[in-house]
């Protein structure tokens, strides 16, 4: 069991360069203790902006520290959505698949939900138009706020590290 994988190995994980047998070994092995920090650091190198990543939030999305002390949800294209404890979807672009015609672009006939019973909500980043989430819900369903991480507890109790902060902007 590696207490810690070599930096290159974690870079390969982030960059999707690992072979299946390597991934399988990672699944079977005991979990490495510093994975969070390693992945966070590699991701920080990969993005084009300087705001410190507090946590990876979802594919393409991060909670980052801003110089004014706020924590915001930010896309890797640089678009900033909202405060970390808000639902980023409220600030996204949406396309709803709720017709037979729209469903048939993705699914064959008879193999998709009935539009009267279920719609697919596609949420895009307004900055880069990447499809960030698709939810399948009954028409009329509220937006789901899927994840509210308890960042303070995580940093102070679980990994016992200070939460990253951004350098205050110079006047």
């Amino acid at each position, binding site marked *: 069991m590696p207490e810690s994988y070599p930096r290159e190995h974690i870079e390969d994980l982030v960059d999707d360069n690992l072979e299946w047998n390597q991934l399988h070994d990672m699944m079977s092995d005991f979990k490495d203790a510093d994975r969070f920090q390693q992945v966070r650091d590699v991701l920080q190198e990969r993005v084009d902006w300087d705001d410190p990543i507090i946590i990876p939030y979802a594919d393409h999305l991060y909670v980052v520290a801003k110089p004014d002390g706020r924590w915001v949800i930010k896309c890797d294209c640089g678009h900033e959505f909202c405060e970390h404890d808000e639902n980023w979807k409220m600030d996204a*672009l*949406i396309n709803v698949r709720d017709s037979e015609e729209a469903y048939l672009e993705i699914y064959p006939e008879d*193999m998709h939900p009935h539009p009267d019973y279920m719609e697919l909500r596609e949420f895009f980043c307004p900055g880069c138009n990447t499809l960030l989430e698709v939810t399948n819900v009954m028409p009329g369903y509220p937006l789901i706020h899927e994840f509210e*991480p308890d960042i303070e507890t995580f940093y102070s109790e679980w990994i016992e590290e200070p939460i990253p902060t951004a350098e205050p902007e110079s006047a």
Partner: protein
Amino acid sequence: MSTEQNEGESFPRMRREKERVHEQQEQGDGIGWDGQTLRDQFEALEEKTEETGHYAGFEQLELKQNNPIEYEQMFAQLRGDLVNARETSKEVAATPIVEQEGELCYGLFTPEGDSIAVSTGIIVHIHTMSEAIKYMINHDYEESPGIEPGDIFVNNDTHVGDVHACDIMTLIPIFHEGELVAWAGGVNHVIDTGAIGPGSMNVSQASRFGDGAYYTARKVGEDLKLFNSWKKDYPDKTRTPDFLKLDERTRMTGCLMIRDAVKNIIDEYGVKQFKQLSREAIEDGRRGFRNRIKKTMLPGTYRGASFVDALYEGQDNLTRAYADENHLMHAPSELHVREDGSFQVSFEGANKWGWHPYNCTPAAIQGGIWVMLTQTVIPNSNVNDGAYYSCDFHLPVGSWANTQNTETAHAYAWHFLVSAWAPLWQHLSRGYFSRGFWEEINAGNANTSNWLQGGGIDQFDKLHAVNSFESACEGVGARYVEDGEPHAAAIWNPEGDMGDAEVWEMTEPLPFLGRAVKPNTGGAGRRAGGAGFESMRTVKDVSRWLLYEMGNGYMTSDGGLFGGYPAASGYILNAQNTDLEERFENQEDYPQHDLDPESGDFESKINGDITRRPEGISTPKEFDDYDMYLNYLRGGSGLGDPLERDPEDVVADIHDGYVLPRHAKDAYAVVVEKVDDEAKHNSAVQGEWELDEEATEELREERMQERAETSQPVTEWYEEQRERIRTEENLIDDVKKTYESSMRMSKQFAEFYHEFWDLPEDFDFTLSEKAEKSLENRFKTGLKQKWDNPTKGHETWLGVGRDDEPEVPYTWTADRTIQDLPTPDASFSDTKAEPATDDD
């Protein structure tokens, strides 16, 4: 066993144990440890657990700490014996369900019913058997009918501890020196339960009275011999008595092997050490669960919602007129990962149970979560009820998830159960993503259907029933690091296997015409959901034969993750009164597949009465020789933006039969060109396609631009939707009935719904007279509870009413601030960090 019999007396050790128990009873002692009654012992255990925050008060793992090698040896030996019992005993069974699919599981339990170790197999029952034992303790079985050495108990009552009636369990107590030291339990899925329709999970009944025979934690034998009253009872309550008799012998074989294994362990290490191990293993499992969560996830709140359809309006052969309605399951799923790594799970907002066989009990829901967690959080042999002691559940009383009404039907509880747990994969995956454990991320699972079931007079001129477990082999949800595994597994059976066609044909008069990967069943995504498959079956040498379908149709229950799409939903395809026989005789083409439902290929190769419709459920209907039936097994959900998928992978998807060529362009914006009509691949696909890189690049750019042009800001969409809801525009009765049902069940959900859409306080949906009557009928039915004397620990899921605040807090809000997480006091008072164990 054979050694004992060779001594001239049957089971001499068991007889000596029995005499010892009788001596103690004469002195007024119970069968628990140190002369306690079992109920007293159980209550003391619950109290110690509550007081100390450690299972049975075991704050230290003395055996594990002082003698770790012996601890591991003992646990590994027990675990090995359980697996051995399963592997050996399944050869006794005759059904492919057990013998091929391994729908069998064994557990070793403490006297109080907590699982110490479990075999491989359908480990959902790690906790259902546990509940059945606790039911017997809580209802004073020690007094009547008595719990003694050599007793045999059977249960399949879901309100006692089971998922559905077709999982029949055998439980035997294991004694040592007059004390109950453990229980051995085994459970397997039987072919037919004697329900109103043939098969193990009939779908046409409205209530329990159509589910088939229920055996409520019943003593069926003494001195390791079955009562004649039992032997003369159950065979007539099933269409497949011979199979069930062998199933029972299977379970007895396994239980007796476990009993011998426990006696060997006690002989080797002493009873004191066995008792110590049984306690420590559970406490170790409890700590291991929390440590694993703390190591791999983030504390906080995770939410999701899933839905599935059960459409009965207009179906034939319903047992009650009032069951002629459509049901939609609504499962809001909320997971709190607390500071100490424990779980709180809530289904607050779930809608009312219905007159359909997909209702659940707490045992079913709790069993369901274990079988999932063991495939994700606890991927090791240290699986036991320790994890149960790390979780609090809130299952609203009166909802489909906890009917607390013995009139409800449960024959295929998994339809709702599997669908409702779908968001849990995503909760865990969101935590794994943030923590960097990307190799563990999984978008979800498949809706495990279709279920091909039926029965009648078979090819051997016998009354028979069938239940094809090809459904144990569905596509798996996409991983973050790889595509989902195609036609691989089912959530409820981690060792999923489609079974050999030839073996199914021996027990089912339904010859295979073809079996192939089914395109577009897995959800699209950067990583594609694993594809499902399909079998085209015909019918041969039967009379008065019935078949039916069971699965999702109008809704897909398995959502995609991070931009991936949900798995496809199901449909029904049958053909009756066909010319298949003539086609065989004339050596003409006949349909072997339905790879593309739009192609017309099936219809071009068969004449007859063809039924093709987008629903997933049908009630039993008559089939005759040379009729045809499509068994379509679903795929898993996708992960990530499909436009990020490597275009070459999409070409491979076409050749592998995972994606229809036209969907390369529509779903993935990949342009392909067919370059050969004749080429064959390792799939049912014929033809060769090549990627047009330049055109793909252009198309993807166009598609990104289209997204910007055709989508709208959510704030704008929100205003339109709010107006739609206020005016109830384009919302069908089935959907509105589901919302009303949830709002009447849950004050919290109603407040959230009103608040989110900014609806007037007095807003409610206008329902049809039929829908209103249906809700009224079910809400007025009230509760008919099975547990009338639970211990305190079992009141956790009984004590929450619809007007109360749930013990697991409800945090769905329309405003956008995080709520404080509840303290761990809800289950345990201990918040101290615990040392990591090596079980993860």
